[in-house]
């Protein structure tokens, strides 16, 4: 089912969580709402679910106006970051809850619960209490519970945010596969750009209550609309007054046309990757990422002069000096986070 959000604004006191936001979500898609914490993406999801009411604007679900509809009448499934398990009910009763509310026949409820527990690989755990499950298991239970009522839309609020890195990775793959099987229109909120790029087929970048860009993961990565989106989706650095990704810079041992000369400031090896910082005169040092093989072939050491140029087809954006100039220890927000770390020498450990 399609979801359309038109001109939605939401304030909490003096804080504007959403500022005239419009988003259209295709039926059957798996869409990520991506952005920094406090940017308004969770609020948008909760407005779609009916858990918050928009101050102004319209929410349509499958063509019907749902703006004023209470949550229980919207036919959405909602999965919370902290699972919202009903602690006094067994796993099976949790999953059955929505069906029992709808007064479905007991046989049907049991069959559906069994089916869903199998789907989320919890068939052995139906009689356990939620407190006896691990975080990942609880989240799968919450997902089964949301899916039990056959929602037209599945909404997940930072679904893997409370889980440790390994489980998070597993559940991501699993959510992707589940969506391929079930095909329900799914929207999930995340602040993890890797998660969004890996799982979603459509990404909406939201920051400070506004939509920054909407598009497929490739489109966003290759053609970011602005420095914010570019830096939020991955590390960035500056070369010749343009923002560019560190791995889109070629490092050469000899001078060529259009290349910028610089001196290797430091080299850090992490696994198969080499992060090189190159000082280029007045400008801030340029962060470059090479493979180990490339570094070996280059044979450069700290203090050597190298030449830098953009790789063919590299995505670049003009640098807005006011926004990106890295002066002092506090990096401006546009280059903060990932971009900031890259600029600071690509020295942060990658894991």
């Amino acid at each position: 089912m399609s979801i359309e959000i038109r001109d939605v604004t939401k304030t909490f006191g003096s804080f504007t969580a959403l500022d005239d936001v419009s988003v259209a979500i295709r039926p059957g898609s798996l869409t990520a709402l991506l952005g920094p914490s406090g940017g308004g993406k969770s609020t948008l999801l909760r407005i779609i679910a009916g858990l918050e009411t928009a101050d102004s604007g319209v929410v349509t679900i499958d063509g019907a106006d749902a703006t004023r509809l209470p949550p229980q009448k919207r036919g959405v499934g909602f999965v919370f970051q902290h699972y919202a398990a009903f602690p006094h009910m067994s796993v099976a009763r949790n999953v059955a809850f929505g069906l029992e509310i709808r007064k479905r026949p007991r046989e049907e409820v049991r069959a559906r619960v069994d089916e869903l527990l199998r789907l989320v690989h919890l068939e052995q755990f139906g009689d356990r209490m939620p407190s006896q499950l691990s975080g990942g298991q609880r989240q799968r239970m919450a997902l089964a519970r949301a899916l039990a009522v056959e929602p037209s839309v599945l909404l997940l609020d930072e679904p893997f945010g409370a889980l440790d890195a390994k489980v998070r990775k597993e559940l991501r793959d699993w959510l992707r596969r589940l969506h391929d099987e079930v095909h329900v229109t799914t929207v999930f909120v995340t602040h993890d750009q890797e998660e969004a790029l890996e799982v979603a087929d459509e990404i909406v970048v939201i920051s400070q209550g506004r939509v920054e860009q909407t598009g497929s993961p490739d489109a966003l990565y290759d053609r970011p609309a602005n420095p914010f989106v570019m830096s939020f989706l991955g590390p960035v650095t500056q070369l010749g007054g343009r923002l560019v990704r560190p791995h889109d810079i070629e490092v050469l041992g000899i001078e060529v046309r259009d290349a910028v000369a610089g001196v290797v400031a430091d080299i850090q090896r992490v696994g198969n990757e080499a992060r090189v910082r190159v000082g280029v005169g007045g400008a801030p040092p340029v962060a470059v990422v090479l493979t180990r093989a490339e570094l070996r072939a280059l044979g450069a050491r700290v203090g050597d002069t190298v030449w830098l140029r953009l790789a063919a087809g590299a995505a670049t954006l003009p640098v807005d000096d006011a926004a990106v100039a890295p002066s002092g220890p506090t990096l401006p927000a546009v280059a903060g986070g990932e971009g900031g770390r890259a600029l600071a020498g690509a020295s942060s450990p990658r894991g």
Partner: protein
Amino acid sequence: MARRGPVVLRAVVIAYLVLLVAWPVSLVFTGAFANGLAPVLDTFRDPLVLNALRLTAIAAGWAVVLNTVFGVGVALLLVRRTFPGRRLLAALVDLPLAVSPVVVGLAIALVYGARSGWLGVPLANVGLDIIYSTPGIVLATTFIALPLVIREIIPVLEEVGTEQEQAARSLGAGPWTTFRRITLPAIRWGLVYGVVLCLARAVGEFGAVKVVSGNLIGRTQTATLTVEELYMNFDREGAFAVAATLASVSIIAIAIVGLLRARTERRTS
């Protein structure tokens, strides 16, 4: 070396609690049976004592029911809703804890007194006596124990948060179903805790009841008033027997509360 201080402190604390609380309270039980079982049994055959115990049970029962309904409702409003005057309501609800029982009795008597009370006169005109009668005792007892249920539920509601309720709503449950199936089970131990405290407080109320009851023996005398009455009439065993009964109720209440607390501690740890 540094062990001496703590041991001395421990001894002082134990001595203080034994001399102030444990020993005196134990004497109420031994005192009741000082002259054997017969006088105790006589006390409980006395229709006046039985009437008093019944009146206490009625007043405490009403206080618990009224304060539970009011407490759950107000706690939900205070925690789950925003409305103008919310902070004021929260402060007012706590007020009865800070008011002397005798002041409570006086306050109720001034409004509901049949001769000159603001509401007492019109009520008396339609044949409803509040003061010197059971309704007055119920009102005074309810006033005294008003905040106890609310105070136990509010922190539980805050801790549970709204996610479970929202999950239930998104799964199709209406407000009443959400309350019955999700909220109530979540707060049930806090509720039991509050009810037990409310009951203990209501059973033990003395000063407020003394003012509004008129202490009419056999009609408006509660169990606590009977303790005073018996003691003043030099029926020491009788006083101790009724006091021991009341003390048993409170000690059972504490035991229940203690068990619940241990239970919640185990669950959170």
